[in-house]
C-alpha cells in the first residue's frame, strides 16, 4: 500500500538509530544538523512520526530529532517497561547529540521529557510539555472502560496471570488500515480521519491477514507503586524553564481540572502557561502551525 499524504506533513530527512540500555531506538530528523537541537517525545501508543506536521515547521530554525520510544514505532521491544527507563532513554538520546537540547514532549512523553530535564539539567535548555501532567487521581480511563474496583493485590494477580500466559505479545490483525482508523477514532474522536490515516499508516504494519499495531502490547503493561500526588514533586529541581501547553477542550485524556494542574505545575520554578483555545489533548496534531508558532516564539526569548 502506498504511503498516504497529509497537508503539511513531511517525512523525516534523515533517520538513525541508537542503542540505549539494550534496546534499539529509532530517531527521525529534520533540519540543518548544525542548528541548535530540539528533541521531540511522543505519547503512549503514538510514535515519532506523529510529529511529521510539527517538525518541519520547527526545522526552519532548529535541528529536530523525534524519537520512537522503546516498544513504539520502529524502535525495538523490551522484555519489560518502566517509566524510569523511558526517562533514561531520553537522556541517552540527548547525550548522543553532544550539546544541550530543547525538549518538546506530548502526554506521557511530555511528563518524561520534564522528568528528564529535572534529572539531567546539564543536557536540557528549555522544555515544552504539551498536556503531559499525569492522570487525574481516578486514573486514566478511556471511553468505554469501567473503573477497576479490585484490590491492589488482586490487580497484581491479574498482571501475573497475563505474564503466565507466556509470550503472547501478538496483536490481533485488523482487516484494513480503515479498521485501525475507525478503532483509534473511537478513542480520539477529535482527530480527523485523514490525519489518522496518515499517522496510523506509520503506527502499524501490513502483515498476512491485515494490519497490526507496531507498539508492544506490553508497553503500557507494567505494574508498580504510583501515586498521583507524586507528580510534579521532582519538578522543583527543574533548572530549565518550562512552557506548559494544554488545549481548552475536554478530550479522551485531559485537560486536568484547573486546580490539579495548578497544584502540579506549582512545583515548577520557571513556568509559563498557554491554553490553546479550541484544541483537545493532541494540540500539536490538531494545530501544528499554532503549536510551532508558540514553541518558536517561546524558544526565541
Amino acid at each position: 500500500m502506498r504511503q498516504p499524504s497529509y497537508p503539511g506533513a513531511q517525512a523525516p530527512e534523515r533517520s538513525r538509530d541508537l542503542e540505549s540500555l539494550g534496546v534499539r531506538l529509532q530517531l527521525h530528523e529534520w533540519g540543518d544538523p548544525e542548528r541548535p537541537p530540539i528533541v521531540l517525545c511522543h505519547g503512549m501508543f503514538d510514535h515519532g512520526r506523529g510529529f511529521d506536521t510539527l517538525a518541519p515547521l520547527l526545522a526552519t530554525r532548529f535541528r529536530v530529532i523525534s524519537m520512537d520510544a522503546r516498544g513504539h514505532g520502529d524502535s525495538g521491544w523490551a522484555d519489560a517497561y518502566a517509566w524510569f527507563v523511558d526517562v533514561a532513554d531520553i537522556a541517552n538520546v540527548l547525550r548522543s547529540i553532544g550539546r544541550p537540547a530543547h525538549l518538546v514532549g506530548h502526554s506521557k512523553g511530555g511528563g518524561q521529557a520534564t522528568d528528564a530535564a529535572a534529572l539531567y539539567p546539564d543536557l536540557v535548555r528549555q522544555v515544552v510539555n504539551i498536556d503531559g501532567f499525569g492522570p487525574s487521581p481516578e486514573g486514566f480511563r478511556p471511553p468505554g472502560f469501567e473503573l477497576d474496583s479490585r484490590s491492589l493485590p488482586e490487580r497484581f494477580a491479574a498482571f501475573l496471570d497475563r505474564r503466565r500466559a507466556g509470550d503472547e505479545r501478538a496483536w490481533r490483525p485488523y482487516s484494513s488500515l480503515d479498521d485501525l482508523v475507525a478503532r483509534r477514532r473511537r478513542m480520539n474522536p477529535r482527530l480527523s480521519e485523514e490525519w489518522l490515516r496518515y499517522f496510523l499508516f506509520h503506527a502499524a504494519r501490513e502483515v498476512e491477514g491485515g494490519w497490526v499495531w507496531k507498539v508492544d502490547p506490553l508497553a503500557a503493561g507494567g505494574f508498580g507503586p504510583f501515586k498521583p500526588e507524586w507528580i510534579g514533586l521532582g519538578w522543583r529541581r527543574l533548572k530549565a524553564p518550562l512552557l506548559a501547553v494544554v488545549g481548552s477542550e475536554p478530550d479522551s485524556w485531559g485537560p486536568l481540572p484547573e486546580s490539579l494542574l495548578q497544584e502540579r505545575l506549582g512545583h515548577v520554578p520557571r513556568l509559563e502557561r498557554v491554553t490553546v483555545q479550541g484544541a483537545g489533548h493532541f494540540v500539536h496534531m490538531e494545530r501544528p502551525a499554532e503549536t510551532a508558532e508558540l514553541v518558536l516564539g517561546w524558544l526565541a526569548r
Partner: protein
Amino acid sequence: MARAVSEPHELRHGRVRLALHPLRAGAGPALLWLHALHSSAAGLASPTIDWPGAVFAVDFCGHGRSGWIAGGAYTPELLAGDGDAALARVGPACLAGEGIGAYVALLLAGARPELVPAALLLPGAGLEGGGSLPDFSGRMDPEWARQASRPAAAGDAAGEADPLVCALESDARPIDYAEAFAVRARRLVLAEDGGLRPAWWEAVARSRSAERAAVGEAWRALKRAAGS
C-alpha cells in the same frame, strides 16, 4: 554453594529463561527460596535448612543462571513474576526471601494467597529499595545512573549478574502499597536480628497476618505458620 539434588529446571517468564534449582527432595509442604539482590540460589545463606518438604530456589532474571531481560526495566513486580513462574511449576509452596527476595515474597504472598500458605521475610541486599517515596532529589542511585548512561548492557547470562539490576536499589516501596499486600497474605514471618528495617517492613510487621520472630526462631515460626 547450595548443593542441588539435580540440574536446574528451565522455566520461562516471557522471553526470559529462568533457572529453578531443586535443592532437596521431601514429601511435606514445599519451600521456594527467593534470593537477595546481586546474589543467586548459589549465594543463599542456609539453603538446605531442615524443612519437612521439597526445597527449591529460583534465580531471578538478571541473576545467577537465569537470563537477562532486554531493556533494563528491573522492578520488584517483574521479579515477582519470576517467583510466580516457579510457583506455577512447583505448586503451593511456602516462601523464604532474603533482601529483595523478602519484598518479592510479600508481593507474592498477597497476590497468590491460594498458593502461598506462609512466607518468611529475611534481611539481605535489596531489602530497602529507594525508600517510601520516589527519589525526587535527583540523587538517584549513582550506580543506576552510571549504567543507564552506557549505550547498552552487553553480555548475557554467563553466571554474571546484569549490571542494570542495580535499578532495584532505588525503586519506591510505599508503606500503604506494602500494607495492601500484607492484608491479603495468609501468614508472614518477619525475621528480626536487631538490625534496622525499612519503613515498609515495619508497616507489614504491624499487620494482622504478620508475626516477628528472632532469626534463630524464624524457621520454627514459619513451619508453625505453614501448618496452621
